[in-house]
């Protein structure tokens, strides 16, 4: 193709490697400042750590495309057939032998079997090729949007501000998150997060209503918040809730985990800020604090930024491998499979450094999701959930056809927590079980671990993975830091 040559020796103001959300925001902002941007992804898809896939696309990612240093193992269960996509099984039946037999059913089924065959025993392959569940999943493959790091958008926060300012909100579609739920032994409980909810709640005891309202009104009052933070700012937020606000049991869990999302201990200042942000988000677009974007979260938002970057003149190449990166006096020379370019700035996801290793400071995230053959928590609705067990907190999202990520009548439950997958798998399963019960409804279950890759000194790198937070604002803040450095801090506004 002609483009192959046009790349050669082009000069750019910035080359951005990776199309995850952080990289995409950075690329879009730099292009908006009328700089020349080249934005590259080694994968054939957008979204990086936040990518979203069709069902077949997900299997393809798991078997062929994922970066094995970042995601070493993927567990997949289709109906009753379980497999682990780590090491490949050798000497088993080649998929090609099997294809003619199954192709008569559906070519999507054949495609999936071909990709999975090397991880399966011949009995499993036989079982799977006759699986009714697989046929149903494969037949509607394109109606699934399965995400590596599903997230929500705060109704008031940095991301929504950027989307509005850049006019992107006009062509993106969002739905409100209908409920914030706490998963308990008795099932799911709605978190009463506003005065109306507190008043109308039948789950709360009267005195609990008073305790909760006392907290909500205190945190809605800037004067009282500044008094709290000046007196107790560095103390533990959980302790403050227990001692000063006398919260305990599921009420404490609701505030500390479902609202403040303290998956690790947080200070009083941090806790107040988080609850305040949550409360301010309520009422902007309705009664809920969060929005969920249609067709998937981070990848959709990332693509919106890429689009606006392209409109501002940015150049895009997918499926482009990086051969070599060379530092020069005035910038970098990047050798790509389609040529060589020079750039003043180079910003990349750490996985683009050939010798990137797992971060020693960042805790990995264990993730699990399952496709259910019924709308477990209601059709046409979106919920966020928290499951608390001792000191472990699992964040969860329940999605349906409301955001077009599953076909009608199906639902999708994500669960994730900080920690090794091997040690958290059961915890995540218990969380999903407590929320939706009955395993018989699971069509597809997937589990994997995301490891953060550490940047190497001397390079400007974006975060090594999508973090465990439930919203996308941390990605915007990470992008802002990089942009501040790029433009020289302070010059941007």
């Amino acid at each position, binding site marked *: 193709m002609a483009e192959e040559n046009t790349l050669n020796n082009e000069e750019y103001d910035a080359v951005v490697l990776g199309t995850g959300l952080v990289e995409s925001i950075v690329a879009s902002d730099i292009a908006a400042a009328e700089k020349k941007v080249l934005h590259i992804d080694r994968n054939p898809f957008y979204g990086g750590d936040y990518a979203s896939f069709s069902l077949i696309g997900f299997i393809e990612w798991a078997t062929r495309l994922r970066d094995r240093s970042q995601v070493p193992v993927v567990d997949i269960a289709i109906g009753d057939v379980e497999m682990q996509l780590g090491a490949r099984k050798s000497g088993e039946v080649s998929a090609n032998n099997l294809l003619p037999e199954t192709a008569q059913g559906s070519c999507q089924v054949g495609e999936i079997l071909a990709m999975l065959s090397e991880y399966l025993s011949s009995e499993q392959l036989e079982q799977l090729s006759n699986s009714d569940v697989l046929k149903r999943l494969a037949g509607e493959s394109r109606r699934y949007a399965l995400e590596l790091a599903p997230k929500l958008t705060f109704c008031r926060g940095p991301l929504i501000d950027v989307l509005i300012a850049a006019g992107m909100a006009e062509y993106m579609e969002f739905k409100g998150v209908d409920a914030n739920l706490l998963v308990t032994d008795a099932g799911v409980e709605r978190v009463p997060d506003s*005065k109306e909810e*507190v008043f109308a709640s039948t789950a709360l005891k*009267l*005195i609990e209503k008073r305790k909760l309202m*006392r907290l909500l009104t205190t945190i809605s009052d800037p004067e009282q918040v500044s008094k709290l933070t000046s007196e107790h700012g560095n103390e533990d937020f959980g302790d403050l809730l227990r001692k000063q606000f006398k919260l305990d049991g599921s009420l404490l869990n609701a505030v500390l985990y479902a609202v403040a999302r303290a998956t690790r201990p947080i200070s009083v200042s941090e806790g107040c800020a988080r609850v305040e942000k949550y409360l301010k988000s309520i009422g902007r677009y309705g009664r809920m604090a969060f929005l969920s974007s249609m067709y998937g979260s981070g990848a959709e938002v990332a693509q919106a930024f890429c689009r606006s970057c392209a409109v501002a003149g940015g150049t895009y190449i997918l499926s482009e491998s990086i051969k070599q990166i060379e530092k020069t006096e005035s910038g970098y020379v990047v050798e790509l499979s389609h040529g060589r370019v020079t750039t003043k700035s180079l910003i990349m996801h750490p996985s683009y450094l050939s010798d990137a290793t797992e971060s020693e400071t960042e805790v990995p995230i264990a993730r699990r999701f399952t496709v259910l053959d019924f709308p477990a928590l209601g059709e046409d609705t979106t919920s966020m959930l928290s499951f608390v067990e001792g000191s472990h907190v699992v964040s969860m999202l329940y999605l349906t056809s409301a955001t077009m990520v599953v076909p009608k009548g199906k639902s999708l439950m994500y669960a994730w927590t900080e920690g090794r997958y091997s040690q958290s798998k059961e915890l995540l399963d218990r969380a999903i079980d407590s929320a939706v019960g009955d395993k018989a409804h699971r069509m597809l279950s997937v589990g994997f671990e995301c490891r953060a890759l550490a940047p190497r000194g001397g390079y400007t790198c974006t975060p090594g993975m999508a973090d465990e937070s439930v919203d996308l604002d941390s990605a915007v803040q990470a992008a802002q830091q990089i942009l501040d450095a790029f433009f020289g801090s302070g010059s941007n506004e």
Partner: protein
Amino acid sequence: MHEESRQKVASYCALNNNVFSSKAASVFTHETLDLTTRLLKDNTELHTIWNYRRDIFTHLPEWTDLGTRQTMLEGELQFLLELIKSNIKSYWMWNQRVWALTELPKPNWELELGLVAKLLALDARNYHGWDYRRYVVSMMKKSGADPSTVDHNEFVFTTDQINRDCANRSAWHNRSKLLPAELERSEDREGVLATEMSMIMNAIYTDPEDQNAWLYHEWLLDIQESDGDRNRLLRDKIAAIRELLELEESKRPLIELVDAFVALDMLDAQAVTGEEKRECMDILERLKSMDSYHRRRYQDLETQLRRQWNTSN
């Protein structure tokens, strides 16, 4: 002033003078009607012109033809709807709407009720809206709707409104008006009262400083059938306040506690113990410093109670 604004003012004044002189000359024509339309769009608060406009309507020759009158007044309702949206608190426009509906040969009350529900959704505590709603409901009953169904629906409507915002005074007030009939209709008087009590308690615990639920509780006392029931309601109230105060001391519950004891004492002079009386004095003392604006009020109540209860310092 900008040239543009200057012109606007000039044309408004000309129109204003024009309409007022037509009024003085008792001109009742389509032309003058159109002039009032233009003027009222600019200034909805000219009640003289709303009055004049009604005069024009009734003096038009077509007025006597009921079909034409229906069309004209339906147009008036539409005109008012547009204007009311921009100034929901205008007495004159609500007045005009009531007039138009009264004169309308075939009024559609169901439609009006739907409209007022929409207006209340925009501004749930608007007393014009609530007042108008009561008017519409009374007209529905007059024009043949089953009164008990209409009232029950209204009662349910207040439940929805209070659930949406438990500080909606208009909704609590309307509920208080509807409750007696609701009690009469229901075969389970106790059940209805228990629901009311739980609603009050929920509101008190959600926001003890908001006075709506406290007032409603007082009112609920009034409609009890026996002093025994009143006694029980007051003891429930006292227990709730004690629980609230344990968590945090605040003004309204303290005042309500004293009030509850005073009410209890009026029902039965033996009901309030000496210790409880001393507690009341103690609370009034604290209130004087907590709420210094009403210091005198607490002082007055204290003096009165001391005399009544014969307690000394």
